[in-house]
């Protein structure tokens, strides 16, 4: 199979449609399973009571917010290096979904912080760097929207996205490097997780669900961008006629 075939919007468009549908369907099933585990299998937390159940969306949303930024920067960098059309489209397609998960991480974190910490917000390193991530996503989208020529918008956005990558390790290690109110990682690659197995399973399943959802949403948006940017081409006109 020749993978480069799918680096042209024309051949990627129908594939993206099929993939978006299936990833969306899987996301729905996986999230339903994750919520079932989170609400009906996982026990009550000894210290936080039921308020801790927010982590089943908070932690996966926070993971996705960082991961999506890296994927976005990867596509942006690829587009900058090889001048491929589709790479820039993929970067633009990921940004709003990344911003959504960043906002959700902050929102759910705030709703968790109030009952457990006694405050909606503190300017500690973890929360502040995650807020900067939200502004990086907004900055990327605003910069692209401000430039009329899509190829130039891609290039300018790519530079911003790549510079912003430095913020990701800062977010991730902030709880180690500085004295933060936000707790350290309960799940890491180097040591055994410090939480009940069912809680961990619920969180992991929700993370996979959010992952599949992000892929579906990004592909749906990539399809819109292809239709908008390639509107002058014959295949887009063809598609518009056939889907009438």
């Amino acid at each position, binding site marked *: 199979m020749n993978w480069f075939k799918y680096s042209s919007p024309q051949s990627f468009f129908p594939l993206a449609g099929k993939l978006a549908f299936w990833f969306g369907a899987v996301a729905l099933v996986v999230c339903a399973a994750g919520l079932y585990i989170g*609400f*009906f*299998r*996982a*026990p*009550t937390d000894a210290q936080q*009571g*039921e*308020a801790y*159940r*927010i982590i089943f*969306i*908070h932690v996966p*949303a926070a993971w996705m917010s960082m991961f999506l930024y890296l994927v976005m920067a990867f596509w942006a960098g690829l587009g900058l290096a090889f001048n491929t059309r589709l790479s820039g489209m993929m970067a633009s397609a990921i940004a*709003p*979904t990344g911003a*959504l998960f960043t*906002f*959700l991480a902050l*929102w*759910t974190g705030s*709703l*968790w912080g*109030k*009952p457990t910490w006694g405050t909606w917000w503190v300017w500690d390193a973890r929360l502040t760097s995650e807020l900067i991530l939200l502004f990086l996503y907004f900055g990327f989208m605003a910069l692209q929207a401000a430039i009329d020529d899509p190829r130039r918008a891609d290039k300018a956005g790519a530079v911003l996205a790549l510079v912003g990558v430095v913020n990701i390790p800062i977010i991730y290690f902030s709880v180690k490097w500085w004295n933060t109110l936000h707790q350290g990682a309960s799940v890491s690659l180097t040591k055994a997780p410090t939480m009940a197995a069912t809680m961990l399973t619920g969180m992991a399943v929700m993370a996979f669900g959010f992952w599949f*959802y992000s892929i579906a*949403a990004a592909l*749906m*948006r990539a*399809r*819109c961008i292809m*239709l*908008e940017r390639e*509107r002058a081409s014959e295949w*887009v*006109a063809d*598609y*518009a*006629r056939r*889907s*009438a």
Partner: protein
Amino acid sequence: MNWGSWDNFLAMGGYAFYVWGSYLVTLGLVIAEIALLALRKRSALARLRLHGTATQGDR
């Protein structure tokens, strides 16, 4: 986890506002994103068709 009753489940041990405030906003924004994407595709196609008929008329 056995909640006993729907009321207990909805009460979330007194943390209903925080827990449901998190989950409902998440659900709402996800639905909004999908709806906006569907609208965006629809309007892109509508504009294409408008453009298409205009050029055909020119010919």
